[in-house]
């Protein structure tokens, strides 16, 4: 059973900052860790699934909680940058 190991608090920040924070947390995490994202930028509804798809990490959940969004991501890659292969090759970080 997976357990959340790292809270990513992106409250009060706007795209692309929340997804950058998720990417940074994924880079520091180990495969199997779960990131729990707290955000209030509605664009996270688009950004988080897109980032999970492109980075190969697994989106477990994304839901509304009042005016917030709570996302849970299972880190499958971790420590390799968590960035899409295209961006790693270009030596820059992904944008949201």
């Amino acid at each position, binding site marked *: 059973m997976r357990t959340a190991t790292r809270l990513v608090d992106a409250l*009060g920040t706007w795209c692309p900052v929340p997804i950058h924070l998720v990417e940074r947390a994924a880079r520091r995490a180990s495969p199997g860790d779960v990131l729990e994202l707290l955000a209030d930028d509605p664009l996270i509804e688009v950004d988080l699934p897109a980032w999970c798809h492109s980075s190969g990490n697994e989106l477990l959940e994304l839901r509304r909680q009042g005016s917030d969004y709570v996302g849970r991501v299972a880190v499958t890659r971790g420590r390799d940058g968590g960035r899409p292969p295209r961006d790693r090759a270009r030596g*820059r970080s992904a944008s949201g």
Partner: protein
Amino acid sequence: MSGGAYLDHAAATPLDPRVREAMEPFLGGAGSPSSIHEWGRHPAEALERARGQVAALVGADEDGLIFTSGAVEARNLAVKGLLAGNRALGRHVVASAVEHPATLAACRTAERAGAPLDLVRVDGEGRIAPAALAEAVREDTALVAVVHGQPDIGTLQDVPALAAAARAARPEARVAVDAGETAGLVPVDMASMDADALVVGGTALGAPAWAGALAVRPGARLHPLIEGGVEEGGKRAGAEALPAIVALGAAAEIAREEMAARAARMEALGERLAAGLLAVPDVRLNGPRRGRIPGNVHVSAGWVEGESLALAMAARGVAVSPGSACTAHGGKAAPTLEAIGLEPPWTHSAVLLTLRWTTTEAEVDAAVAAFADAVAALRAMSPLAP
């Protein structure tokens, strides 16, 4: 200055040579902590090492530690950021009447925007009563702000008791603790203080005044003041002031090891200084004799104006602050002195002397002699002095 004394350490304090040595490699070097290339690795490691050092000093979670440009920015971030992130809790703000001017100003700004604000009164030595704090907390209180060590008169508050009182009145309310003048001088532990946010300042540590941090409990919900970047977890955008941050980290690590010895020395010097100043007729100590920030001595001298006294002491080679290290200009009464019930002329006749562990007995004695001489000279010119 030969034969003089620098007793204005709350305003700015000389760098510990070990701190200077730690920060110097980061003055003007290439590479940003945010860079993904090799040049960014060393700065990034230094940034995270400093984060760990400061977090360890105050018992904070490393991930929740945000570096700022000093304690004043951290105070603003605590008040404004917690209120913005916790609108669902309500808008009511409770603060003590003796908060740092930056905290009071941030609370006033919130009030101007519609947040009800209650300032809790203190006793004659500047202490906040837990019962009075709890009484001010309402069902819509979002934030309770308390200062651990009062910057002017040095009163140390029983923060765990105050936080417990606030939590008993409303568990959800956020508690912001200002340890900007105390972290590094006396033990500060975020967990035992039950703080949601805790301010750290550079000068109390022997780091530059332009270094500071806000430690935030994970889940406390803080919005940034400065937006637009991922630096500091998105809570404080903009390039990191790496020399200041490294200095704060190095100073925090040194303080953890040397705090007890420093405090003992500063308390002894403070006692010597207070005894010397109080030997001058019609001089009163503001704040408690015991239970104050080590090295903080705040006195009022009857029939003498504080700014004139500070200037007269400077002319005698001794640096002090008039009334408050933070509001040293303008000729206004320090709000803290009014809060403890003082009236003119005591509110206008105060000077603040602040020591550090590097202060010598000779400096203390020079300050006492300069104070006595300056007070006598100014009283001789005063039409009000008896």
